[in-house]
């Protein structure tokens, strides 16, 4: 007998999913005025989990009005010290109900419970904890004395880290004194709706956080709403561009966290076993549904072959399957639509003549799955080397010298993140300096922390989330009104 791991599923019993959900406006769940709903599905089983309300224009108006009233009457005039205490409460409530959030996230998103339990949910709580402390210290945020909130923030988040992205958006906005209207992605609304319950348990004043569900059309209504002072968006570069166009000529501020095509660069003097782990973590974390994924592996030619061999050997130990199983490394692709997009790009890699290798894993019959895939013999001209795949697909390129690595790494309209693997300190610093990307991981990859600013160069967006720099996305200097500007640096 070999050492097979028996199934070790996390119990679903901890969550109770309602058959349908309303919109969270002004502190309570209300039915959508239009009465339209859509289904949210477990991507691992295609089981319908719940009916979600689609917010229409009058729902958006109601949410914005509620946020405005809460801003004017309560939140903007409340002391920072008291705002802080509400955020601390939320952080603690998230910790208390962490397992429930993790299981729900895994059910709705398809990500492995190991990740929702160990990364998404703890980091979400940490974001509230970090920003809570800022609420009464904003005069130290670097924007001069008496910095001001922006007002009502409209926040639109993606499906890859539903609760974590909610935390990245709501925590700094609230800490800085703004109120919010947040729309989760249509395929992953459930943890945002559970978060609404946390707001109720925390006795957060009604209207400070409004959560309205819906698809792109609801998002457009938020973006175009004149009662909103600031839009924060995380998602695709295409949608980000259309939002920037929609805000042209207005006074509404904008921060964008968009796509990426990060280079993960491995030199011949790298700690190779950890580099292999970093490559795996870089592209297969969260099924590759990560904007900062290390989707382009740049290997120094002298070690390319042995590194690819080691990588393939390592990928054979990855466990794909039931996301609720505690031993699962690779979960389900979030939607059929996303799977189709990944498959289409894989096909383009095949057609372009790149060499495909797929990890030998059995795909479940139901649900949407994609086995870890590596393309070698990729050139800069291939679509799989240029376009964001947002799936577990790695494109491998080679380089000979540090200069060539930099040239190839920077040769993209994106600039979100990059990885460097070498044991030579001066080379790390030189590379970090030369790379045009907002987050550089040296001898590690895909690390996140609320104190660490995150955001992109170039078409990966503008503004930062996290750290002291992230506060500027929701705060302005007292004399900013005279010299209005968009974005945050």
């Amino acid at each position, binding site marked *: *007998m*070999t*050492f*097979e*791991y*028996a*199934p*070790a599923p996390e119990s679903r019993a901890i969550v109770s999913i309602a058959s349908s959900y309303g919109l969270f406006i002004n502190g309570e769940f209300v039915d959508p005025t239009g009465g339209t709903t859509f289904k949210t599905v477990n991507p691992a089983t295609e089981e319908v989990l719940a009916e979600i309300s689609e917010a229409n224009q009058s729902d958006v108006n109601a949410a914005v009005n509620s946020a405005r009233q809460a801003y004017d009457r309560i939140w903007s005039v409340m002391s920072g010290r008291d705002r802080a205490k509400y955020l601390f409460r939320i952080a603690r409530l998230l910790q208390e109900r962490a397992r429930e959030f993790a299981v729900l996230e895994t059910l709705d998103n398809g990500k492995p419970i*190991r990740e929702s339990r*160990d990364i998404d949910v703890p980091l979400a709580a940490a974001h509230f904890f970090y920003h809570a402390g800022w609420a009464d210290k904003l005069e130290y945020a670097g924007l001069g004395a008496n910095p001001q909130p922006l007002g009502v923030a409209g926040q639109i988040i993606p499906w890859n880290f539903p609760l974590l992205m909610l935390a990245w958006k709501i925590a700094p906005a609230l800490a800085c004194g703004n109120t919010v209207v947040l729309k989760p992605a249509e395929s992953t609304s459930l943890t945002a709706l559970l978060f609404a319950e946390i707001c109720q348990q925390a006795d957060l004043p009604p209207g400070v956080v409004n959560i309205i569900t819906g698809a792109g059309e609801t998002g457009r209504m938020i973006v175009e709403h004149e009662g909103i002072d600031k839009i924060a968006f995380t998602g695709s570069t295409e949608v980000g561009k259309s939002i920037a166009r929609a805000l042209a000529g207005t006074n509404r501020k904008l921060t964008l966290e968009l796509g990426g095509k990060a280079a993960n660069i491995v030199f011949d*003097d*790298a*700690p*190779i*076993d*950890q580099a292999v*782990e*970093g490559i795996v973590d870089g592209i297969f974390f969260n099924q590759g549904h990560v904007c900062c994924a290390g989707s382009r592996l740049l290997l120094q030619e002298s070690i390319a072959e*042995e590194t690819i*061999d080691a990588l393939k050997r390592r990928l054979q*130990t990855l466990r794909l399957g039931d996301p609720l199983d*505690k*031993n699962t490394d690779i979960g389900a692709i979030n939607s059929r639509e996303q799977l189709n997009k990944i498959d289409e790009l894989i096909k383009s890699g095949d057609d372009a003549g790149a060499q495909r290798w797929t990890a030998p894993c059995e795909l479940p019959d139901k649900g949407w799955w994609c086995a870890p895939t590596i393309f070698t013999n990729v050139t800069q001209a291939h679509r799989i080397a240029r376009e964001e795949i947002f799936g577990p697909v790695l494109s491998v390129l080679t380089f000979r010298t540090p200069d060539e690595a930099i040239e190839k790494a920077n040769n993209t309209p994106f600039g979100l993140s990059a990885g460097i693997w070498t*044991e030579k300190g001066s080379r790390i610093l030189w590379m970090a300096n030369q790379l045009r990307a907002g987050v550089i991981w040296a*001898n*590690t990859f895909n690390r996140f922390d609320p104190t660490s600013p995150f955001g992109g160069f170039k078409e990966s967006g503008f503004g930062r989330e996290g750290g002291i720099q992230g506060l500027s996305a929701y705060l302005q200097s007292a004399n900013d009104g005279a010299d209005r500007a968009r974005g945050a640096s």
Partner: protein
Amino acid sequence: MRTIAEPLTTTSALREFLHGLPGVDEVGIKARATALGTRSIKNDSKSWAIDMAIRMVDLTTLEGMDTPGKVRAMCAKALRPDPTDPTAPSVAAVCVYGDMAPVARAVVGDNLHVAAVATAFPSGRASIEVKLRDVRDAVAGGADEIDMVIDRGAFLAGNYGLVHEQIVAVKAACGLAHLKVILETGELRTLDNVRRASWLAMLAGADFIKTSTGKVPVAATPAVTIVMLQAVRDYCALTGSQIGVKPAGGIRTSKDAIKYLVLVKETAGEAWLTPDLFRFGASTLLNDLLMQRQRMAVGHYSGPDYVTID
């Protein structure tokens, strides 16, 4: 892949080779160990793992106060760990000081391996003549496995040639006995050193590489064990020979032991999941494994009164 182009015996040739090995990033490997530590082993796989872990134990007593009586009791336990359950497997070996090898052999006969620590264990601070005599005595006394210690002083001073030479000499003195080389990783301190010492030992003829004597504060850790498992994996890819790994010291619970088996499976591979290639140097671990085994069999938690002390 790396190749071994020339005979690696001199300090300079060894230095070039060992320092050419990829570095080990401590944080990265600890993160990997932590991630593997979250593997959840249930039901059948847990039963299998517990029995495998028992079969991998080198049941050990290495105390100044050891007596023939103590060693005999331990050997009896090693042969039949759970007197109430004949399906419980025997351990792999007993591990004693060299002078106790005859006592142990008399009890276990041909049924178990007898491992003896030798070479001025645990410090290794003695002349090579003394060390070799120590080995020969143990082998003559019935040990068929020798657990030697490397000269950490020489290793840390960069005198790789001397360390190599001593291992080669000890190996020769072992005759047919298997040689386990103790790196004493707690004294090597860095994981780069652990990787280099692992290769040095393998190049010199070790059959097993072992983490620790159990006599310094830091013994086996998951990170150190992963580095050693990577070394045997890579050495096998290069030479075709499989070298064993033995973490020793500090592994006290079934949960820990199972985590180590996960490390073996996911680092070196299934081929190493055999007592021929992986051992635990332990004493108290065995009883915890037995209690877990009882709990799996009867469905409720066991207690220390239901396993024997020796």
